[in-house]
Every structure is written in structure tokens, then in C-alpha cells.
């Protein structure tokens, strides 16, 4: 087995008394793709957002690469250190609206990696090419389709060479005919052994891309295993009920 890249220990998070995560333990290995599934509102997004501290966990430990933090006492320096190990792809893309497709990818290279502009530009062009958007270099997000925006979003997330990439429902804001192009890019990343933790409502996608599937329910990891184990041989009644909603 590859080394552990992301380790979450006893993670707790509540929003004004609403206990969302109640002690999550999770390990993701180098190059592994882990898909988190579960009912709506069960805390999948919250889990991902806690990993890069967009939400501050109430309790628990997160370590990525060599950086390890213990909630709730996490200072700014630790926050930035942990975040620089990760990157995130958002359901709503969250591209920088005042920057072109190319500049969106250049921005973290220049600001975070302190790369000179020329070099950042070349790097960003290569990335844009790998997500199939070379012709959209100078286009602003408002002029891109959802699928194109999300591919730029993935490009931006790749730019800083994160140890772990977090993808929160990367396709669920997309029209069905645009889902494919984004999934292709994610599969490509998986084949290059990018470590990924993703949430999704697309069971076929989870089946196809994930090495391991986590079923989250009531703030806990209720069941986990290979896609075959989870989808073809679910054990808990909860998971069975959940999956039955997706079978036609």
C-alpha cells in the first residue's frame, strides 16, 4: 500500500448545535481516489471544506503530507500551510470573475508559488491545453459554458501541484451533456495518480473513477469499501435504502 497522504482523526463539526460531523476517521493514500457518497445534507461538503479549513472543525486532527493540525486551535500560519497542500474544485466553479481563463490558472502560480509572470503563463498554457481549452485562453468566466468553467476550475486546482485535490460535486451544476467532458478530465487526473477526495451524486462516476467509496450518513462513516463492495454488496440497511433511490 502507498503511504498515507491525508489522515483525518475524530473530526467533529457542528453549526449552531446542528451536529454535522460526529467523529470522522479517514485515511487517503497517495494516488488513491476516494469518493464520498451519502444523502443530501449529510455533511459531505462540510467534510471536504473542513479538510482545507474553509470551515473550521470543532475538534479533531487533520494531517496532509508533513502538515498536521489539531482543531480548534489552528492559527493562520497553519491554515495556510495546510491549504497549500490541497486545492479544491467547487460545485459552483468559483472561478475568479475578473480574470481570464489563463489568468485564473496563473493567479495561484504567481501569488502562491511566486512564479515569474512569463513562467506562470507558460505553465498555465500547458494546463489549459491538458483540459482541452487552449482556444479559450483570453475568455472571461462569464463567457464560458459551465463545463468549460469547471475544466478551468480543475486546471486551477492542478496548477499548484497539490498533495490532495478536493472535488465537491464537480459535475452537479452542469447540464447532462456537459458532464462527460468534466468527468473525462477527472479520470485523466486519476490515471496520473493524483490523490483525490471527491463527493458526488453520480453513482456511475463514483464506480468508474474511485478506488474506494465512503458512505457518509448521520455524521459518520457508515460503510466503506471498493466500489464493488459498496454498490454490489452493501451491508447496512441505510446504504441499501440510499442506493435503491439511484437504481431504476
Amino acid at each position, binding site marked *: 500500500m502507498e503511504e498515507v497522504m491525508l489522515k483525518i482523526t475524530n473530526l467533529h463539526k457542528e453549526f449552531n448545535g446542528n451536529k454535522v460531523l460526529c467523529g470522522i476517521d479517514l485515511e487517503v493514500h497517495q494516488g488513491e481516489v476516494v469518493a464520498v457518497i451519502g444523502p443530501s445534507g449529510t455533511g459531505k461538503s462540510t467534510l471536504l471544506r473542513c479538510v482545507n479549513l474553509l470551515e473550521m472543525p470543532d475538534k479533531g486532527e487533520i494531517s496532509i503530507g508533513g502538515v498536521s493540525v489539531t482543531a480548534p486551535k489552528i492559527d493562520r500560519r497553519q491554515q495556510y500551510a495546510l*491549504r497549500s497542500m490541497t486545492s479544491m474544485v*467547487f460545485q459552483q466553479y468559483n472561478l*475568479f470573475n*475578473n480574470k481570464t481563463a489563463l489568468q485564473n490558472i496563473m493567479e*495561484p502560480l504567481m501569488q502562491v508559488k511566486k512564479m515569474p509572470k512569463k513562467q506562470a503563463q507558460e505553465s498555465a498554457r500547458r494546463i489549459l491545453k491538458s483540459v482541452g481549452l487552449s482556444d479559450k485562453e483570453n475568455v472571461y468566466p462569464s463567457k464560458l459554458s459551465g463545463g468549460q468553467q469547471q475544466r478551468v476550475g480543475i486546471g*486551477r*486546482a492542478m496548477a499548484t501541484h497539490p498533495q490532495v485535490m*478536493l472535488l465537491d460535486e464537480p459535475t452537479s451544476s452542469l447540464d447532462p451533456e456537459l458532464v462527460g467532458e468534466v468527468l473525462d478530465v477527472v479520470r485523466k487526473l486519476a490515471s496520473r495518480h493524483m490523490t483525490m477526495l471527491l463527493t458526488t451524486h453520480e453513482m456511475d462516476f463514483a464506480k468508474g473513477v474511485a478506488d474506494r467509496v465512503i458512505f457518509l450518513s448521520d455524521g459518520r462513516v457508515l460503510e466503506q469499501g471498493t466500489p464493488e463492495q459498496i454498490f454490489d454488496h452493501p451491508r447496512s440497511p441505510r446504504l441499501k435504502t440510499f442506493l435503491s433511490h439511484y437504481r431504476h
Partner: protein
Amino acid sequence: MFDASFFWGLFPIMFRYIDTTLGISLASLLLALLIAFIIAGAYYLEVPVLKEICGAWVSIFRGTPLLAQLFWICYGLPQLIVPMQKLSTMTLIIWGVAFNASSYMSETLRGALSSVNKGQMEGCLACGMTRFQGFFRIVLPQAVRVAVPGLSNNFVDIIKQSSLAFTLGVTEIMAVAKMEGSTDLKFLESFTAVMIVYWLIVTFFNYVQKLLEKWLSRMY
């Protein structure tokens, strides 16, 4: 009844003093913008201490009349802070108008900042940028575009408020109107003329604002 030749004769005189009015207005605008950006930034980034100071500043300058503030800065404060006595009345008026306008402009900017989707900052943080980088490079530029109409309104207020300078003995167009009018008691002519001049200035800057908005909206 209405002395037309006197009326027309007022304009060349007033145009000689228009630079004072515009000088006060533009200098106040720049200073007010600078302070307003600091206040809005302090709020958005939740800078400790500075945020509290800015809150008090806004509360004071929004909660009291401009005329009182001008008298306080020109006559009151120099008694406490002696070096201020060396400053010209004009400078102190610019400070007063700017301090006052900064409190309104900071509110305009804060509104614009909060109109920028929270996802923009999260996008910055998620790829490793600091809050400061995110603020200055991504959020603020988007907010400024939203704020331009509001800030332009604030600037129009500044232009109009610069007329208060005459109460402190600075000769700008309002003071000229009063002086010229009172020599022959031709107040109708002189104050009509001054209203027209203000209207022309404001209309001109409204036009500039439209151009600026057009230019900004062409960008993305």
C-alpha cells in the same frame, strides 16, 4: 426685475474661482477614497483594533452635521493640536469634507464588497492564496466596479458640500456669488448663476461616470 447683462457678466467671474471649488472637491475625493478603502478593507479583513477605530470614525462623521465638523476641524481642533494652526483653511476644509465623505464612501464600498460572491474569496483561499491576496487581487477589483455608481454619487455630494467652504472664509464660487450679489442686491441673478454653474459641473462629472462605467463593463 432680472438684470440679464449683470447675470451673464457673472459667469466669467465665477469661472475664475471654479478651480477653488474643483480643487477642494478633487482633493477631498482622493483623500476620502484613500480613507474609505482602508475602512472597507479593515472591515472585510476583520483587522483587529483598526476595525474598531474605523467603526468609531464612521459613526462620528455620519452622525454629526458636516458644518459642525468643518468648524470643529478649522477652529476647534487647532486649539488642541497646535501644529494644525500652520495649515491653511483650505487644507482643513479639504480634510473636513474628505473625512465626512470617507464615512459615506466606506459604506458604499462595504456594500459593494458584500455583493461579491463569497465563493470568490473561497476560491482564493482554496488554492493557497492569503486573505490579503484574495482581497486585493480578486474581491476588491470586482467590488470597485459595483461601487462606481455609488461612489460617483458620493463625489457629487462632495462637489455640493464644497460650497460650505464659503462659511469659513474661502473664496470659491459660492462666496463669489454671495459677494457679487450683495453689492447691488442682485441675489436672484447671482444665486441663479451659481446654481447653473454647480449644475454644469455635476452634469459633466455624471457624464464622466457614464464613460467610466462603460469602460469598466467592457472589461469582463
